[in-house]
C-alpha cells in the first residue's frame, strides 16, 4: 500500500453560476483498488469525474494525483499524467476504424504528424510497434476481428469495450469508467465485471467507476462512495453502504422511477 493515496479529493466543489453540482467532496482512492462512485441521477458523479480529468476546473478544494495537485490543469495534461477515462455517452472517433481509435491513444503516435513527412526506418518501426500494441489491446478486449471496421459500425457493447481499449492505450495508472454497464443485459454485465477485474490485475490499474446499477457495483468493488445532490453521504465497504439508511433513502425515490 502506498503511503499517499493514488487519487485524493479534498473538499472538492464544482459550481456553475448559481448551481452547485458538487460540494465538499472528500475521497481517497488507494492504488490498486476497485472503487465506485454511485448515487441517484444528477448527484454530481460525472461532474466529479469531469473535475478530476480537467474538463471542468474545480470551483474549490483540491484534486491530488500521486500527491500532485492537478485541479484546473488541462485535460490532455492530466491524461498524460496517467488518468484515463471513458464517457457516459460514448465518445469514440466515429469516422476512424477500431484500430485507429486505439492507435490514436498510444503515446508514441500522439505527436502530430509534421515530422512524419520523411518516412525513415525509425518511423516505420514506431508505426509497426504501435500497431502491434494496439492489436494486443484489442485482443484483450475481444475486438481484434473488428480492427478495420468503422467505429460507428460496432454494436453498442463493442463500442463500450473499444472505449475502454482506447483508454488503456494511454498506459494509465488510474482508469475512470463512467457508466460502463449502461444499456447492458445481465449476461453482458457479468462479462463486464469479469473484464474489469481482469484488467485491474493484468494492467496493474486502479479503477473507479460510476454506475446506476447498485447490484453491479456491489458485486465488483471493494469500496463504494455515495453522492446525493453533490454531497457524499456514505463511503465504505459495499455491505455497509447498502445498509446505510441515508443511502436507502436517497435511492428510494429514484428506484421507484427506474423500476
Amino acid at each position, binding site marked *: 500500500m502506498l503511503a499517499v493515496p493514488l487519487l485524493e479529493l479534498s473538499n472538492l466543489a464544482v459550481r456553475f453560476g448559481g448551481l452547485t453540482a458538487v460540494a465538499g467532496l472528500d475521497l481517497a482512492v488507494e492504488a490498486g483498488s476497485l472503487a465506485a462512485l454511485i448515487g441517484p441521477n444528477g448527484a454530481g458523479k460525472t461532474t466529479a469525474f469531469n473535475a478530476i480529468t480537467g474538463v471542468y476546473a474545480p470551483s474549490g478544494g483540491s484534486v491530488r494525483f500521486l500527491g500532485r495537485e492537478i485541479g484546473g490543469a488541462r485535460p490532455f495534461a492530466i491524461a498524460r499524467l496517467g488518468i484515463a477515462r471513458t464517457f457516459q455517452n460514448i465518445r469514440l472517433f466515429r469516422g476512424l476504424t477500431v484500430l485507429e481509435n486505439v492507435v490514436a491513444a498510444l503515446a508514441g503516435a500522439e505527436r*502530430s504528424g509534421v515530422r512524419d513527412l520523411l518516412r525513415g526506418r525509425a518511423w516505420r518501426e514506431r508505426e509497426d510497434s504501435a500497431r502491434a500494441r494496439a492489436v494486443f489491446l484489442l485482443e484483450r478486449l475481444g475486438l481484434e476481428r473488428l480492427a478495420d471496421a468503422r467505429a460507428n459500425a460496432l454494436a453498442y457493447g463493442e463500442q463500450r469495450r473499444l472505449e475502454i481499449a482506447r483508454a488503456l492505450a494511454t498506459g494509465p495508472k488510474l482508469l475512470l469508467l463512467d457508466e460502463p454497464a449502461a444499456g447492458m443485459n445481465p449476461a453482458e454485465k457479468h462479462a463486464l465485471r469479469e473484464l474489469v477485474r481482469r484488467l485491474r490485475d493484468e494492467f496493474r490499474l486502479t479503477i473507479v467507476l460510476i454506475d446506476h446499477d447498485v447490484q453491479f457495483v456491489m458485486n465488483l468493488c471493494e469500496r463504494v462512495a455515495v453522492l446525493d445532490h453533490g454531497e457524499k453521504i456514505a463511503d465504505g465497504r459495499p455491505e455497509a453502504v447498502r445498509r446505510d439508511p441515508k443511502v436507502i433513502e436517497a435511492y428510494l425515490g429514484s428506484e421507484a422511477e427506474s423500476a
Partner: protein
Amino acid sequence: MRRALVAAGLACAALVVLDVLLPRLLNPYYLTIASRIGIAIIAAVSLQLVNGFTGQFSIGHAGFMAIGAYGSAAASVYLGAGLLDGLAGVLPAPLARALYFPLPLLVGGLAAAAAGLLVGIPTLRLRGDYLAIATLGFGEIIRIGILNLDAVGGARGFSLASPAYPAIDLRFEGLGGIYAVVVLSVLAIARLVHAGGGLAFRAVGEDEIAAESIGVGATRVKVEAFVVSSFFAGVAGALFALSEGYIHTNSFGFTRSFEIVVFVVLGGLGSLSGAIVAAAALTAAPELLRGLGEWRMILYSLLLIATMWLRPQGLLGRRELSLPRWRWRSLRLGARRAPARAQ
C-alpha cells in the same frame, strides 16, 4: 530503390510533356485554366486539412493566399530579380530558373504560415460559428491591410516586374513547375493526414473532448493544422502571382474564400480526392462555360444549395477515390500487404 527511379523517370517525362509539348499544342487560354486548376487544388487540399480533417470551419483561406501571393511577389520584385539575374549569369538559363523557382514559393509559404500562427493561436480557442466568423474577419483584415500598402501597389494592384532589372522575367508560367508543386503539396498533405501522427488531426476533428482525454492537446493540434494549411495556401498564392504576373486584392476577398470552402464541402469534408475533383471541376467548368455569363455564379450557388439538400456529405464524404495502381492504401495506417500479427 527501383520504384524510386521509375517514379523519378516518370516525373521527368511528365515535366517535359507539360512544359514543352503542351504549350505547343494547346491554346494559351487552356494553359491558363490548367494552371488555375492546379492552384485551386492546392488551395482546396490545404483547406481540407483544417476544415475536413481537423474539423475547424475556417472561411478566411483567401487571406493566407493573399499573403503568399503578395509576399512572394514583393520578394521577387525587390530581392529575387537581382538573385535571378546573378544566377543566370553563372548558370544556363533553364537551370538558373529551375533553381530559383522554389524560392519565391517558400517565401510566400512561410509568410503565410507565420500569419497562420498569429491568427490561429487566438482564434482556434473558439468553436463552430464563432471560429468561422473570426477567420472571415481576419481574412478581410489581411486583405484590407494589403490594399493599403503602397509598396505592393495598393489599389492599383502589383505587377511582377522589377524596375531595376527590366530584362528579367519573374514569371513562371510553365505547367510542369506548377504541377510539380501541386503533386508535392498533395502528397505532403496526404502523408500528414493518413499516417500515425495524423490521427491526432482526425481525432481532434472527430471529438475534441475525447481527443484531450487520450492526451492529445487539441489546441496545439489545431494550430499545427492551421499553420500547415496556411503554408500551402501561401504556396498556392505564390504560384498564382508567379503565373499570372499581376495580382490585385480583389482576387483574395471572401468570395474566393467561399469558393474554396465550396470545393471542400462539395468534394466531401474529409476526402482529399474529393477536394481535388471538386476543385478541378469547379474551376474548369465556369471557364469553359463562360458563355453562360452571369448565370455561371447563379448555377454555382444553386449547386451548393442543392448539394446541401440532397447530399450534405458531398461527393465522396470521407472516403478517398481508390485508384488501384496508386496505392492510396499504402499511405493509410496499418494497410501493409500482410497484416502484421503481434508476436
